[in-house]
């Protein structure tokens, strides 16, 4: 590959010129096809790609890029890794970087752009891209100087509340108060209101950070949410404290008590919901959890369904939280450009959507191609969100987000320590945001 670098340079110029021409004469809709159709004569060799997708996800990703490979004759060399931060930090040191990579979050993304490692994605038609993605997604991929450096293809809807269809037969609750009443009525004897499992290896606690984010967004509103995520609002502020307290009451009414909650893998957290008698009525989790219901609890798709997280304070109605996987470019080659353009097209994303386990960030992917009811409705929620907010902890500096995860484990174990936990988070906040 090294030997062919020289040839690439020539092509880069050609490719850039071509992109200019396309941008000048092409409309927004054709943009996606531009990389595919326009450049295929010059493209050759390989594109290396490091991502966090592995197992079935890796297979689906490779299926998604297969048509592009066939069209262009370029091979995608994909490497999956557990730890993107480690892989890319060392890659920057060695100069041995993939052409394209998944990025662990906006914080490192900006650092790496500042170091000159991450390349601008100025060839992407920003208006088309941002128009097709949920509110806030496109901005998250912008550097501090306003250049697009990261894009989303895969998204996740958070804050969905799952239930066992045999237990919860009522209509979705309109408000949090309704939900508490209804769940309280169903929780009797051996059945608790909630199932919560927080264990997740190096990121234990994250399911509870999603809880806090969902509560803050609906209880204190998007402005408070934004300030808090940006580090402008202390953790000990009344709004955040109140969110922890609301979550504290959820924990109180959860299956198994604190030992169960902190020791149970999140993927198995909802297993008691499908036992007989059910251990709990409800489970709060992101859209991908249905795979775990089937594989780990042995549930059939008819056995579960979900409703969106209800409003808490009616003045902040319609809030939705979600996440997604950022992609950035480290080597500016025409092949890499072409692949990114291809990956952003609804046609490409539809391939993975049809294989399952993928909520598209692109609203151009028609809802009816989703293979099952739950993923289709998740995508619908994402597309129709009035107030969309990106996963707050993913958007905080890494040290803050790590402390947040740990704090949730500590809080679930000892809810009485709330004040000292929040004080610790305040301390980390001062340190982490200053350093960033």
């Amino acid at each position, binding site marked *: 590959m090294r030997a062919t670098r020289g040839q690439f340079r020539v092509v880069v110029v050609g490719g850039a010129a071509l992109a200019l021409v396309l941008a000048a004469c092409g409309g927004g809709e054709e943009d996606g096809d531009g990389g595919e159709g326009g450049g295929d004569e010059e493209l050759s060799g390989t594109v290396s790609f490091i991502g966090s997708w592995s*197992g*079935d996800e890796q297979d689906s990703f490779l299926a998604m890029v297969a048509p592009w490979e066939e069209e262009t004759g370029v091979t995608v060399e*994909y490497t999956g890794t557990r730890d993107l931060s480690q892989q890319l930090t060392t890659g920057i040191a060695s100069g041995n970087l993939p052409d394209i990579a998944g990025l662990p979050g906006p914080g490192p993304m900006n650092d790496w752009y500042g170091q000159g490692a991450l390349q601008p994605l100025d060839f992407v038609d920003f208006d088309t891209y941002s128009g097709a993605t949920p509110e806030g997604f496109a901005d998250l991929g912008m550097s501090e100087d306003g250049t697009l450096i990261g894009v989303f293809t895969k998204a996740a809807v958070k804050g969905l509340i799952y239930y066992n269809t045999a237990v919860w037969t009522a209509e979705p609750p309109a408000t949090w108060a309704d939900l508490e009443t209804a769940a309280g009525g169903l929780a009797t004897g051996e059945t608790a209101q909630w199932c919560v499992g927080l264990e997740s290896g190096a990121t234990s606690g994250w399911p509870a950070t999603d809880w806090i984010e969902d509560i803050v967004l609906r209880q204190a509103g998007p402005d408070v949410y934004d300030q808090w995520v940006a580090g402008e609002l202390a953790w000990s502020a009344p709004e955040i404290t109140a969110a922890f307290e609301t979550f504290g009451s959820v924990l109180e009414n959860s299956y198994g008590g604190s030992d169960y909650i902190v020791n149970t893998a999140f*993927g198995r957290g909802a297993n008691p919901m499908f036992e007989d008698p059910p251990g709990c009525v409800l489970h709060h989790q992101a859209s991908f959890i249905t795979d775990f219901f089937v594989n*780990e609890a042995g549930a059939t798709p008819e056995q579960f369904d979900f409703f969106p997280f209800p409003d808490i304070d009616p003045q902040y109605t319609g809030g939705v939280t979600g996440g997604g996987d950022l992609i950035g470019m480290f080597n500016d080659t025409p092949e890499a450009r072409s692949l990114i353009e291809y990956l952003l097209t609804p046609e490409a994303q539809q391939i993975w959507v049809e294989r399952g386990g993928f909520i598209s960030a692109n609203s151009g992917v028609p809802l009816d191609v989703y293979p099952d009811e739950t993923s289709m409705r998740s995508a619908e929620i994402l597309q129709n969100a009035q107030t969309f907010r990106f996963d707050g902890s993913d958007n905080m500096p890494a040290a803050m987000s790590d402390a947040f995860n740990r704090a949730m484990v500590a809080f679930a174990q000892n809810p009485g320590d709330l004040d000292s936990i929040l004080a610790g988070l305040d301390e980390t906040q001062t340190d982490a945001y200053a350093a960033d």
Partner: protein
Amino acid sequence: MTQAPIAVDLPTQEPAGGRRGKKRRPGSVLHVVLTIIMLMWAVPTLGLFVASFRTAEATNASGWWTAIIPPWEFTFGNYDYVLNRAGFWDSFVNSLFITIPATVLVVMVSAFAAYAFAWMHFPGRNAIFVVVVGLLVVPLQVTLIPVLALFRDASLGGYELNGTIMAVWLAHTGYGLPFAVYLLRNYVGGLPRSLFEAAEIDGAGHATIFFRLVLPMSVPVIASLVIFQFLWVWNDLLVALVYLGPVPANHPLSVTLANLTTNFGGNWQFVTAAAFVSMVVPILVFFALQRYFVRGITGGAVKG
């Protein structure tokens, strides 16, 4: 190599086989103690082994010990998935290509150094040796960024080391040396002085002493070193990923197997099968080298 032409005055020892008959009649307490120890060590491994033949759902629902009792509901699904993973065999071969030279390099290079440390005199000998052993504590993770940067800046004559299999061998050799030198120096240093004096009187040079005397006499300790170095390199994930970077064609088995689970930790049941699949080769090495852990082999080798 066993037919050493050097006459060494060693106490004659019986061949290994002859000793067996002399083993003391062990008491029944000993058997009980050893059985308990075996059980303590085997239970977790056995649990993992049983889990590797079950579905995730079954493992979540009931303990592995219940699965041993019929009716058996074992499945080869996990193994099937692991063995048919794309790139499995390529990465298996890559693992051998990385592990074998990294092991040979560590053993030879550390044996040279151990011999020098133990039987040659030079200024600063102990100080240098302590530094070498002290390097054991250097966390591998902090070395990565400086070394990678060094390789990048010093790419020799346009040949890029980063991303090649050779970089991985070299790195593993560097990281394995402190332990290897320490272990071998201790053993080689413990060999009787009379042996070396006799050889020198016979006019043997250092190369002869080293290859005909030191190496054969150190076979048991070298066997244990080979076992560990092989195992560590074989199971290593971090060094391989970082030094190879985005070149999947060069990835060893450990990297391929680490990618069995999904982003959110789903499909963990494949990890159980993968653990046993990747264990096969190191265990074969362990068994193959078992025969060097027999009393009398060192004496026998020198006696010729």
